[in-house]
């Protein structure tokens, strides 16, 4: 799938060059010590490209998020470079962009390390990164430290905001409190229930943030919550939760956990005879592969948040390609069904292109200014950063059902917050 290696296009210093450079530097201690150690726009004169750093969780537990990255990167980079790239005023010419992808191994420690490497060794002009707090949080902080403009997507706002206030890092995605809660409670209200909600949330950033918010607002909205607490990854036996819900006659399941744990838990629900009327599951069932891995009919009727789909009425600001066309291209190239992160992977480049075009400069401060002033209709919706450096992206609700083209398809069944995103199905009781 990713045979065409993106990194081939990337200007990197190989080892020999590195050693040579080191030797030269070491040899001229005096000369070097008088120069500023930070080489920013001073070097711009002999620049022949703009470098974007792309830390990506290619391996490790988050690799499912990072999967389509090389594909989306290639499309976006080709689109930007087709017309010669981005005009840089000072140089009076267009520079193509190059990207450098490095693997974070789904590890925040490694993410911080490779981000530092990209900044200090490769001297990236802009950092672009997505997918979950374990990727986004540490890299945002590192970019703050080294004063490098950074755009991140696809990670809930609340955990990201913990690291603020930010000056250099900008982030776009939905908020648990402002987006998830209305969507989820909206889905619940579509079905007649006893308003008893069983909570199943992991002790990771998502699970913690979700459970805290829901506990605050759930009662206000008239729901009774049953929560036996957070649990760690890799739990094998969920029966204490399930038995508690059964005893209390719970009819709504509210979950946020990683896919393998959900598969284990949901199967145990079946074994123990727990059958809620509504099951809203965050994060775990974003990907169709998980619906398949559940086996049998177990995925039928599960609801989840939808942050992006081919039905979203948005199109690329660069090429005019619609969400639907973009997904079709993915299927055509890979033979796989679309996934929600795909749009965001591409939207990052729309932002980069827009920002760099407006900045028309390689000066980091000017790029940062340009990001702050962004107002762009992208393939994932409108992005406009506020004074806390974030922008909310639209969120609707969806439900899994047997599909025509694919074994499992998600239908958009709740769109009250963003009515311009069309419904493609009606919520049904499980």
């Amino acid at each position, binding site marked *: 799938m990713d045979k065409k290696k993106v990194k081939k296009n990337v200007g990197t210093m190989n080892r020999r060059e590195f050693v040579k450079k080191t030797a030269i530097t070491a040899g001229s201690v005096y000369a070097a010590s008088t120069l500023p150690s930070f080489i920013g726009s001073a070097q711009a004169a002999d620049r022949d490209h703009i470098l974007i750093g792309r830390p990506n969780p290619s391996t490790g537990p988050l690799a499912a998020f990072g999967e389509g990255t090389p594909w989306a990167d290639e499309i976006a980079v080709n689109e930007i470079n087709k017309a010669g790239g981005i005009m840089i005023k000072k140089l009076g010419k267009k520079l193509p962009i190059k990207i450098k992808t490095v693997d974070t191994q789904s590890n925040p420690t490694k993410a911080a390390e490779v981000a530092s490497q990209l900044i200090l060794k490769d001297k990236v002009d802009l950092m672009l990164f997505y997918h979950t707090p374990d990727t986004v*949080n540490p890299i945002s902080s590192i970019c703050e430290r080294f004063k490098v403009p950074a755009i991140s997507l696809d990670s809930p706002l609340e955990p990201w905001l913990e690291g603020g206030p930010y000056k250099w890092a900008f982030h776009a995605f939905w908020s648990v409190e402002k987006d998830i809660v209305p969507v989820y409670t909206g889905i619940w209200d579509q079905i007649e229930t006893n308003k008893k909600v069983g909570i199943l949330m992991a002790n990771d950033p998502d699970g913690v943030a979700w459970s805290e918010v829901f506990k605050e607002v759930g009662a206000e909205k008239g729901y009774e919550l049953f929560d036996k607490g957070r649990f760690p990854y890799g739990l094998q036996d969920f029966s204490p939760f399930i038995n508690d819900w059964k005893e209390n006659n719970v009819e709504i399941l509210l979950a946020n956990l990683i896919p393998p744990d959900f598969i284990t838990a949901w199967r145990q629900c079946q074994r123990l005879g727990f059958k809620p009327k509504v099951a809203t599951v965050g994060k775990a069932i974003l990907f169709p592969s998980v619906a398949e891995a559940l086996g049998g009919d177990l995925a039928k009727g599960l609801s989840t948040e939808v942050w992006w789909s081919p039905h979203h009425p948005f199109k690329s600001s660069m090429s005019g390609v619609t969400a639907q066309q973009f997904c079709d291209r993915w299927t055509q190239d890979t033979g796989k069904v679309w996934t929600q992160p795909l749009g965001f992977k591409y939207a990052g480049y729309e932002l980069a292109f827009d920002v760099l075009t407006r900045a028309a400069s390689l000066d980091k401060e000017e790029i940062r200014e340009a990001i702050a002033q962004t107002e762009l209709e992208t393939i994932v919706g409108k992005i406009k950063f506020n004074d806390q450096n974030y922008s909310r992206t639209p969120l609707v609700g969806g439900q899994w059902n047997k599909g025509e083209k694919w074994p499992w398809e998600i239908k958009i069944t709740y769109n009250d917050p963003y009515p311009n995103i069309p419904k493609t199905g009606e919520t049904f009781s499980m």
Partner: protein
Amino acid sequence: MIREPFKYRWLVLGALFILLATLPVWGSDYMLLLGLLFCLYAALSQMWNLLTGYSGLLSLGQQAFIGFGGYTMAVTTSYYNINIWLSILAGGVTSVLLALFMSLFIFRMSGIFFAIGTWIFAEILMLWFSNWEYVKYGTGLFVKPPNPPSMTMIYYAALTMGVAALATVYLILRSKIGLGLMAMRDNEAVSSSMGVEIFRSKLFCFLVAAFITGTTAGVLYVFQIFIQPYKAFAIDWTVSLVFIVIIGGIGTIEGPIVGSLIFVLLSQYLSEYGHISLLLLGIIAIIIILVAPKGIMGTLQEKTGFELLSPRRLFSEEPG
């Protein structure tokens, strides 16, 4: 015969130290990053070497101190606005307390039981921290010191840890404790005749290693800014240390230094290979260990008689 390499070694170490100490002056920011990582890994691996290579304590639980030290630093400085350097030291102190508590359980075990016991302890800490509201469960903490240090200051802190770790191991080995441990390595019978003393020496090394590992972890997470329990307490740390020390040469004082250098450069180089970088690291580790079973410095010592203050067991049992 032993004298000449001795002098030579101090020359090399002295040069290395001067080079590292002046690095912020002459090196690029990227070299500063490499130097920082090198010093941190050298300090951590030197401690694993002290335990496993010299004290006969095979630890697979160094990540317990890395996570504990890191979290202590993060909590004290972000929650209580305590000076960042004091917070780092606090990480070392709490790690020692943790080590003392751990020793109640695991010092009754030996060999591989000890190894697994330490690992399980780290696992317990991971589960505990990821379930602890005070540290925000598994969400992780941002390190927000009242006075954020510059990269150069973090670098010097790392260098301090690297030098401190080296000096500590050297001093321990030259002391009575070190001689006892070495005697134990060379002759099992000695250990039984010196039971209590050996126990004390081992415990002492365990506590020292906890202190330096916990403190180094503090510096590490000041650099990292973000700490999260699933990775802070992950076995990955110890896997890296095992790699460094065994490739460099276990039971040699130079081994961890050489190993850290290789590890840092290799992982920088391999990160260009994205999703197969770890795969390559695994293959390289296996190839090196097959070619040089005693690590680079161990094999060098054997081949050239280049022997310093770390005598390995040279004779192996012959049948018959």
